[in-house]
């Protein structure tokens, strides 16, 4: 395994205000290092702060305390504009409920993250087609999300995430809406993506996914309990 540090969080904390005075400590005192081509599992029960942690690490939300370094740069200091650029260039997302755009077919969903780029449309097409092929989705190219099974939709979502060759993929309960067999298929796909050099961070409360992990971070009630290799 490569030893290049991709993401490093120090003393990370997030508090949410609820109502007037109540403060929810969604995450506290988290210290982690994530390396290139690692598949990391954020494991913990519901409400333990997994999604909160993904939001912070991916720059979707700002931490209340602590620093997050992406390849040495502190992203918690970034302006919103710089964060958008950071996400566009380095981050892919996979969601529990896929979040495909319903009006776009599989192929267009995969292309969509690159529309704002200056990449010529024919190169974009070649790239998207080869990504779809990689995920064995070529025969589903023209299908709309409503016409695809859950597993297929999740594979389209993964294709969309890896299309721009990100450094990190964040996946929140990627198998949460799928049956066991399909869930395993998705995990194998993510594992393969990871082997090709992308750091994959999966948040889950599903114990069965542990087999795929290079590293497991245990969360409970907003705190990091342990880390296992």
């Amino acid at each position, binding site marked *: 395994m490569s030893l290049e540090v991709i993401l490093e969080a120090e003393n990370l904390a997030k508090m949410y205000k609820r109502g007037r005075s109540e403060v929810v400590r969604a995450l506290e005192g988290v210290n982690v290092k994530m390396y290139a081509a690692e598949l990391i599992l954020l494991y913990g029960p519901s409400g333990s702060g997994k999604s909160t942690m993904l939001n912070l690490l991916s720059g979707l939300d700002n931490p209340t305390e602590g620093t997050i370094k992406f390849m040495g740069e502190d992203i918690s200091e970034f302006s919103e504009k710089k964060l958008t650029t950071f*996400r*566009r260039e380095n981050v892919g997302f996979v969601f529990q*409920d896929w979040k495909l*755009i319903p*009006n776009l077919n599989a192929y267009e969903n995969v292309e969509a993250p690159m*529309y704002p*780029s200056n990449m010529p449309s024919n190169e974009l097409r070649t790239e998207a087609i080869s990504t779809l092929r990689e995920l064995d989705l070529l025969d589903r190219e023209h299908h709309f999300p409503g016409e695809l099974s859950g597993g297929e939709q999740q594979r389209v979502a993964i294709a969309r995430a890896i299309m721009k060759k990100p450094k990190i993929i964040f996946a929140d309960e990627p198998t949460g809406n799928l049956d066991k067999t399909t869930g395993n298929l998705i995990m194998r796909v993510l594992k393969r993506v990871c082997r090709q050099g992308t750091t994959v961070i999966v948040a889950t409360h599903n114990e069965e996914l542990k087999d795929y992990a290079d590293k497991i971070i245990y969360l409970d009630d907003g705190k990091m309990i342990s880390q296992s290799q």
Partner: protein
Amino acid sequence: MGLLRVLGKSIRFTFRSKLRFIVFIIIFAIISSFVAFFINDIDDLQTNRFIDQKAVEMEEISEFSVNYTQAMSTENDILNLEQTKNIDIEDHTKYLYYDLDTSVRMYSIDIAKPWMSSKIKPSHMETGNFPSEANEIMIPTGSFQIWNSSNNVTIKSDIVVGQTLIFENGEESIELLVVGTFNTNEIAIPLNINSELWMVVDITTFEEMVDLYDGDIENAYVYSMTFTVPGDVLSRETYFAVGELNDLIEELLVNQADISIYGNWRSHYAPLPTQEAIDEADLIILSIQYAILGGVLLSTMFAYLISRFRRNEISILKAMGYANRYVRATLIGEILTTSFVGFIIGLGTVQARLSYVGDFRQSSLLSSQSILVSFGLIVVISIPGMIFVSQKILRISPSEAFRTK
């Protein structure tokens, strides 16, 4: 380039959200048809009925041509009424004619004031356009040219819109472009158009043409003069002022007994519109205001609804790294496409209705001006919605994408 691609794609994808698309297209079509319909009514009011009613027109009595000097004397006397009789005259124009030759006669118009004459005005066009540049001219429908060769061979050919006529005298020449033909029935002065060529030219070109043939503008004749009073064409006061001016002019004409000095004139003005006509005009203007207000409300509601419907999608796009302006482009693409398609359908509906009612005559078509004004209004109507959408998307956070429904 990326921005254009995002906009282009969003225009294409708009057609996919069928129900939303169709519903809002219908709404936009209804708004646009109202706007276009009322704008067209206003256009008709202006052009056919109202502008004439601001003016007193003087015409030569047909047996007695009025020459330039005579017309100047009468014009001066009428303009003097401003001082002696304390009445306001807003504008005035003289319409001249001049024979370049026994068979070529020019009539003058003022292209800056196309509606000042009730004889030759845009609504009397049969084909083509009313001149809008100094070198553009109109001719009566059916005008032709005749060439006679030395061997008595005669060629007769129609003059058509788009043709250039070149007038030469020695080194100098003037080129005139025929841009339209008009209906001669509207012109009271009897002329034999079978043996003469008439041209209607702007007054500046008229003077240049007279110069070209070393003539003198003082040898021109005057077929009519128009005097307008100040005021809003939709206000009843204006018609009373016109009536008063006409009375004063008639009184003056009686006093100008010597027609060798003043020419022989007849004055008239359009009859007062009925209160009903004025009410109708007021109603049209009120309707336009309501159509615009309704349009602004509906398009803002549309903008609000699409930012709601697409809230999820917006947060996904933001999470994927779309900057705000790209997200905005996708929404504005949808608003523009929907309102534009709706506009075209609305316009088509009005056009179909007008054509059906108006027996397919050209005058029953929407003028290009009405279409442009309506389109401008539709764009203006969509602006508040677009601003609203732009504000709205700033507040949608990309982390919303992580929340599961």
